[in-house]
């Protein structure tokens, strides 16, 4: 995608050419937005804060999936399984060994990354749909492992309770405090994802996505870069899973399941594949739609009184499934693309053609 610069704006230095946030007003807007998010607990209700918290954690997982599926083109329905790995590792390190939370988070990221490498290995031999099935296998084998292996540590299907993270003497024990943790980590992961995607690594990913045979002929090592993509995606999943586990304070083999993997992929498509903005848009919109399903449950209970008990379980997949299908048919390039079009139209105004 060619970068459209507004009229009259020129690059006077390489640093300026490479900068992401280019103008003072953009800095001001960004800082204002972040300030609004960080002060959210002061003026928003508890439920909104915890929703934003959940959106933030989802964004991290989708960012990782975007590096793997959006940029490298390797379709994975196993992202939630790697979240499970990260969640368990960080939970056990904090609970049993008493590690400080930041160290446990890093260990969770690396541990999930290594497991991700393992399930990425088939990508060297198979691709496309077959690879999707291999990642689906991860989605079955990893939860099974947590249920069956080391019952004295992992506690089988019951799962483990997770301690509240404590840092600098602060207990992050409610959404109003936890959100600072989520937002700070989210800023780091967004910066990393953005810089990965525009560096040598990101260009190699895109080359593999667009034509893997041609990329290999040009000297892009498929072996190296595909595994790096799997590693990065699983690292992001590990961070996200660890954050989610500490926020829910409990994890078992079903906390992150197949449906969550599908939802993460759906978020990616709704937002727009292969754009960093897309991960943020997609996760936000889909989380809001799922929240909308929960909120509209009382209305549907009147229509279908027989299903009153399972109404939320029925509406969430229903809303999500239809959103995904409608996006695939009418907006296959996602919200990020629509946002680009909007920006271009705004810049060319009033000559929009």
């Amino acid at each position, binding site marked *: 995608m060619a970068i459209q610069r507004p009229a009259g704006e020129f690059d006077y230095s390489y640093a300026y050419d490479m900068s992401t946030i280019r103008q003072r007003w953009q800095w001001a807007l960004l800082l204002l937005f972040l300030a609004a998010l960080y002060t959210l607990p002061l003026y928003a209700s508890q439920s909104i804060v915890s929703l934003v918290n959940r959106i933030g954690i989802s964004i991290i997982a989708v960012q990782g999936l975007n590096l793997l*599926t959006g940029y490298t*083109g390797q*379709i994975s*329905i196993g992202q939630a399984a790697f979240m499970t790995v990260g969640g368990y590792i960080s939970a056990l390190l904090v609970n049993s060994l008493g590690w400080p939370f930041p160290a446990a988070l890093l260990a969770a990221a690396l541990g999930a990354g290594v497991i991700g490498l393992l399930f990425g*290995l*088939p990508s060297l*031999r*198979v691709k*496309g*749909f*077959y690879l*999707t*099935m*291999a990642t*689906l*296998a991860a989605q*079955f*084998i990893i939860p*099974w492992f947590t249920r*069956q*292996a080391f019952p004295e540590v992992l506690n089988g299907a019951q799962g483990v309770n997770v301690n509240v993270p404590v840092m600098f003497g602060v207990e992050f024990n409610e959404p109003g405090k936890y959100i600072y943790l989520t937002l700070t980590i989210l800023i780091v992961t967004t910066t990393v994802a953005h810089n990965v995607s525009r560096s040598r690594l990101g260009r190699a990913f895109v080359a593999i996505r667009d*034509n893997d*045979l*041609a990329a290999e*002929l040009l000297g892009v090592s498929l072996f190296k870069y595909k595994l790096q993509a799997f590693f990065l995606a699983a690292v992001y999943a590990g961070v996200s899973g660890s954050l989610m586990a500490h926020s829910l304070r409990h994890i078992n083999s079903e906390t992150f399941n*197949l*449906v969550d993997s*599908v939802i993460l*992929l*759906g978020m990616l*498509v709704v937002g727009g*594949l292969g754009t960093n903005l897309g991960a943020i848009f997609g996760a936000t919109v889909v989380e809001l739609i799922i929240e909308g399903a929960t909120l509209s449950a009382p209305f*549907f209970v009147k229509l*279908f009184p*027989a*299903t009153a*008990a*399972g*109404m939320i*379980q*029925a*509406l*969430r*997949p*229903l*809303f*999500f*499934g*239809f*959103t*995904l*299908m409608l996006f*695939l*048919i009418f907006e*296959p390039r996602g919200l990020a693309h629509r946002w680009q079009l909007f920006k271009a139209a705004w810049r060319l105004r009033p000559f929009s053609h």
Partner: protein
Amino acid sequence: MNWQLLPQFAVTGILAGGPLALIALGLVLIFKASYIFNFAQGQLLLLGALFTWWLSIGIGLNLWLSILLAVVIMSLVGFAIERLALRPMTGQPLLSIILMTLGLSQALQGLALLVFGGAQRNFPQIFSAEDPYIIATPLVHEGNPINLILKQNLVWSFVVAIVGVVIIGGFFQYTRTGLAMRATSEDHELAQSAGLRIRRIFGISWGLAGVVATVGGVLLATSSGLDLSLSLIVLAAFPAVLLGGLDSIPGTIVGGLMIGLSQGLVKVSKVAVVRNSAEIMPYVVLMIVLLIRPEGLFGQKRIERI
């Protein structure tokens, strides 16, 4: 290994693989015609069984009539899905198509729960669950003769499933429509230029998949009861499809039975963890297949050119 139980569990596993083969057939039908792997097959199965239950118990029709009506309804549902959801996806990248069927599976699952509710239902028994067949085998283990005890419904489900696969296979091999479908799976554009109406053929293959799913759903529901988790059984059929080869109809039988056998065999073990691995056995087999022979046992190997 518990040798005394080995023959029993091996045979039971193979019998349980019969319905898997039928489910796998539904997947292969669609894949062969249109290169779409239908992740929503489990929900088609579920809907087929739910419609049958609703017609026979809810409305009170004769069981066989309700199965027939459910088959008709589900073939229409199959047509509708192809027309409304997948035709707009023609020419889209693989990810979009995979996500379309995944989104469809979520939407259908939610719809089934919304309309029918999530309660466990008693499905009418088609085959008797009483007096199992007892077959004496010449095998002897430590002086004890080994007898096979086979539940009637398991045996007859297996028979119906295999007969179903053979009928559909024969339809593919020996009828004009079957020939047209095979031609379409060979090359869409070539088939179109030879005068085949490939849209109609896509529609027919989805309709057939709906029929096969209904039969599979009824077979599973009659032996294990009907609730919304029925759609999860199809997750064991995905590996069966890949093992047999994505575009091979005989492969579905071999794949389904081998997955069933693998699940049966690990149950013989004396180690608890190995016994419990029956639920993930299909995916362990899947990983092995992907690493050793990704095209499956009977699938076509595709050569890539730039």
